[in-house]
């Protein structure tokens, strides 16, 4: 263990769900201070390294997949350190306990949590280092630290004398007492937070710099592709590789747990050779469902099992009993693929009893488990190098591609790059689950008196716990992995967090309705599922905000005013709702042939209201404009907030208009962008984003733009056509 680890800031979960820092005592003889005499560099904590020649490195514990951590988190530490964000060089964290996400006790990037969980600890880290640098300079000048200031990576003395650069001060700074409770800069003194624009990674990403997993290049590297079963759960029975082995460049063909690997000198050789491979599959445990069966099984489950109560308030059955009217609707939503533009890939190299993996992953510590599971190695023998990610959206929380690359590398003993084709990426995804929602409301005296929401579908943790549980207990021997997976599930809500993936966004129903009955009927058709940008909010948002629209219509009320009348107890909801309506000129005439729809939804702590303006022309739905009002607390980078909301809108509209992964006899029917289309430039609406000025603690923005736009579009189409669509994706003609 390196000596420096001892004086890393120790991160422990605080009572508020945020972080508290405990610091070791440096400065005394014999106690490590984070100063390395050989290099002359100072690591005051787990995040910062300052060098004698004035470079500042920042270890980024949350991956960059487009959501802006590289810029946003660097801005936090830069603000308190007193240097421009662009003068800091971020680098991706290795897998280590001090870099875990405190909300999950795993080192993963997801749930729109990066900024919220880093807001306090990173500013404290920056402030501590700055205070120690100032004390060091003050001791040199024999003045009070209070009379010194910092600017541009230098400490300035009182009375305008010569300044000292941070680099010159690091050795002395390391010996200063660590401030116990460093005062953070007041808001009015911020130079970068809330003001910084642009992105620190924009130049690398505009010049073709080799920064993604797929770009990794190692000396002597070979390439692998894997033929996987067409139906999930099938296993290799036998395979015939006699023709494959005759193909140019082919080095090896062998079975791994997930299929048959073909390894060749070049990628294209491996791909061509793969076509000559014939595999006979044992399909005795293979998935055999078709999409229609999924939904009929959901309806059957819903009839037979009212589900577990997830929120109950008042007396819903009583409200129905005395209601003048009962309104019912059910909504069906399909499986959705992540479709990151960079397909799944990983590069692995096994040598000297250890394996190194270079991969675009959202969860490096789970990657260690994945690699250990399929080799003779323990997680400690696995090093994960995280690269930039060409999109994540939840897909790269699952490290099946690391598992495959590691299994191949363990056998070939050369650096191996595994690349999935787009077709493989589409067909072997872990999907946003298909879901059924049954809604029922009681209405009396022109008021909604009761709200019932039965969510029907799987839970994601059932699929995720396989590698997540062992990652939380890395000391556990491998033969316990499967047990840990099962225990992890049983301990849900005790040792592991309750799985909210099916119910989030439904149980937080915010409107003022006295009697609530919200339930989850847990049923799993066996299709692999995972987190997908905005997760449960993505389907519950549609269910809640579409049914609200149906109720407004039943009551003969304006959809905006109807929501408004039921939300005035929630000021942040109300503010974004009013702003979006005002900005979209709600109630004013719409251009001929168009209509507006509205939705209001809070997810990941962020409040978003959206108004969609749409039309139907020549058999196609056209979305003209989406107006968004957003309250995400304190904004760190306004450009990134805007981009994330706009990107979320495009992502949500893609799902609303085109997203449909279907199964036939257990096989995915889609393969590439011709049958799983993404919204294009010429289909995009104008997106207007207004951000509420707030000094509340910041909340995430990567996901909250997605959920409301789907119902807002459906509601606009209802306003346009008078026909309610209750199954996604939406169609131009029903």
């Amino acid at each position: 263990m390196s000596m420096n680890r001892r004086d890393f800031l120790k991160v422990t979960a605080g009572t508020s769900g945020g972080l508290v820092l405990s610091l070791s005592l440096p400065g005394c003889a014999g106690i490590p201070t984070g100063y390395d005499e050989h290099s002359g560099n100072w690591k005051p904590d787990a995040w910062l390294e300052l060098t004698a020649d004035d470079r500042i490195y920042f270890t980024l514990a949350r991956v960059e997949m487009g959501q802006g951590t590289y810029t946003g988190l660097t801005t936090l530490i830069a603000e308190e350190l007193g240097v421009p964000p662009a003068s800091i060089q971020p680098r991706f964290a290795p897998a280590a306990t001090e870099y875990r996400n405190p909300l999950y006790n795993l080192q993963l990037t997801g749930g729109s949590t990066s900024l919220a969980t880093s807001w306090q600890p990173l500013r404290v880290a920056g402030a501590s280092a700055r205070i120690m640098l100032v004390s060091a300079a003050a001791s040199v000048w024999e003045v009070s630290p209070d009379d010194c200031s910092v600017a541009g990576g230098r400490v300035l003395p009182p009375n305008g004398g010569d300044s000292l650069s941070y680099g010159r001060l690091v050795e002395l700074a390391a010996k200063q007492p660590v401030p116990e409770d460093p005062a953070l800069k007041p808001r009015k003194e911020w130079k970068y937070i809330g003001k910084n624009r642009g992105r620190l990674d924009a130049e690398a990403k505009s010049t073709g710099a080799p920064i993604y997993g797929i770009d990794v290049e190692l000396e002597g590297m070979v390439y692998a592709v894997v033929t996987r079963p067409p139906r999930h759960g099938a296993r290799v029975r036998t395979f015939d590789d006699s023709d494959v082995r005759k193909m140019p460049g082919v080095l090896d063909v062998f079975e791994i747990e997930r299929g048959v690997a073909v390894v060749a000198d070049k990628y294209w050789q491996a791909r061509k050779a793969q076509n000559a491979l014939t595999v006979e599959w044992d399909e005795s445990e293979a998935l055999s469902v078709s999409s229609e069966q999924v939904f009929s099984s959901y309806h059957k489950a819903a009839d037979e099992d009212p589900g577990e109560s997830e929120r109950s308030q008042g007396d819903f059955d009583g409200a129905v009993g005395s209601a003048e009217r009962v309104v019912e609707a059910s909504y069906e939503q399909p499986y959705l693929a992540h479709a990151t533009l960079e397909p799944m890939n990983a590069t692995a190299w096994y040598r000297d009893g250890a394996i190194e993996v270079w991969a675009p992953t959202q969860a490096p510590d789970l990657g260690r488990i994945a690699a250990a599971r399929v080799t003779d190695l323990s997680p400690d023998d696995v090093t994960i190098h995280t690269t930039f990610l060409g999109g994540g959206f939840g897909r790269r929380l699952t490290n099946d591609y690391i598992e495959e690359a590691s299994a191949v590398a363990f056998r070939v003993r050369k650096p191996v790059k595994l690349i999935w084709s787009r077709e493989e990426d589409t067909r072997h995804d872990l999907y946003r689950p298909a879901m059924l929602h049954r809604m029922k409301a009681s209405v009396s005296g022109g008021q909604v008196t009761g709200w019932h929401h039965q969510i029907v579908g799987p839970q994601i943790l059932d699929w995720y716990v396989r590698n997540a549980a062992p990652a939380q207990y890395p000391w556990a021997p491998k033969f316990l992995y499967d047990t840990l997976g099962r225990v992890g599930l049983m301990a849900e809500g005790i040792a592991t967090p309750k799985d909210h993936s099916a119910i989030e966004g439904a149980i937080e129903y915010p409107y003022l309705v006295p009697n609530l009955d919200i339930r989850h009927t847990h049923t799993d058709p066996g299709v692999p599922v995972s987190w997908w940008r905005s997760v449960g909010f993505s389907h519950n948002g549609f269910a809640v905000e579409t049914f609200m629209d149906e109720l407004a219509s039943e009551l003969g009320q304006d959809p905006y005013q109807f929501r408004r009348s039921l939300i005035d107890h929630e000021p942040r909801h109300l503010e974004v709702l009013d702003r979006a309506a005002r900005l979209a000129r709600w109630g004013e005439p719409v251009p001929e042939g168009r209509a507006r729809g509205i939705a209001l939804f809070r997810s990941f702590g962020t409040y978003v209201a959206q108004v969609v303006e749409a039309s139907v022309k020549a058999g196609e739905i056209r979305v003209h404009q989406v107006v968004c009002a957003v309250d995400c607390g304190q904004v760190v980078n306004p450009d990134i907030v805007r981009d994330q909301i706009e990107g979320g809108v495009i992502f949500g509209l893609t799902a609303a208009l085109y997203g449909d992964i279907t199964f036939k006899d257990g096989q995915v029917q889609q393969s590439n962008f011709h049958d799983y289309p993404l919204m294009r430039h010429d289909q995009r609406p104008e997106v207007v984003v207004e951000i509420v000025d707030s000094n509340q603690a910041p909340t995430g923005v990567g996901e909250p733009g997605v959920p409301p736009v789907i119902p807002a579009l459906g509601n606009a189409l209802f306003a346009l056509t008078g026909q309610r669509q209750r199954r996604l994706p939406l169609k131009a003609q029903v």
Partner: protein
Amino acid sequence: MAVSLAVNGRKQTVEVDGDTPLLWVIRDEIGLKGTKFGCGMGLCGACTVHLNGQPVRSCSTPVEMAEGGDVTTIEGLSSNGGLHPLQQAWVEHGVPQCGYCQSGQIMSAAHLLQHNSAPSRDDIVAAVSGNLCRCGTYSRIVTAVESVVEKGTARYSREDA
């Protein structure tokens, strides 16, 4: 087979199967990783390069079809070794999110500007509509291209030199 082609002005000869997509030659034989693999069917545009001045999908262009050709990739777009005006605009407008599609977006936009120094918004949208962006950076892409048009610095590619 041996295939000769010029990449970013440099003559190269590579020994590969003739049906190898130009994309993998550029990435793995020549070692320029800026051109991206997205779909392998010419559907997403991440692999867009210029072949003899025309934008092509390198993932579905066999290298033998590029024999003797002149290829420009994102790394060779600029005429002076600095940033091409489009790349400069991409940085100034903070266009990239995950960034994976942006080489292709820029190559499509660069071809437009080489042939039309005053394109309308519709021209710009048409030129880049074959380039998918999963992050949804579309509006910033159009704004960035328009800023280059306004500055009148559109023609600064190596290919114009």
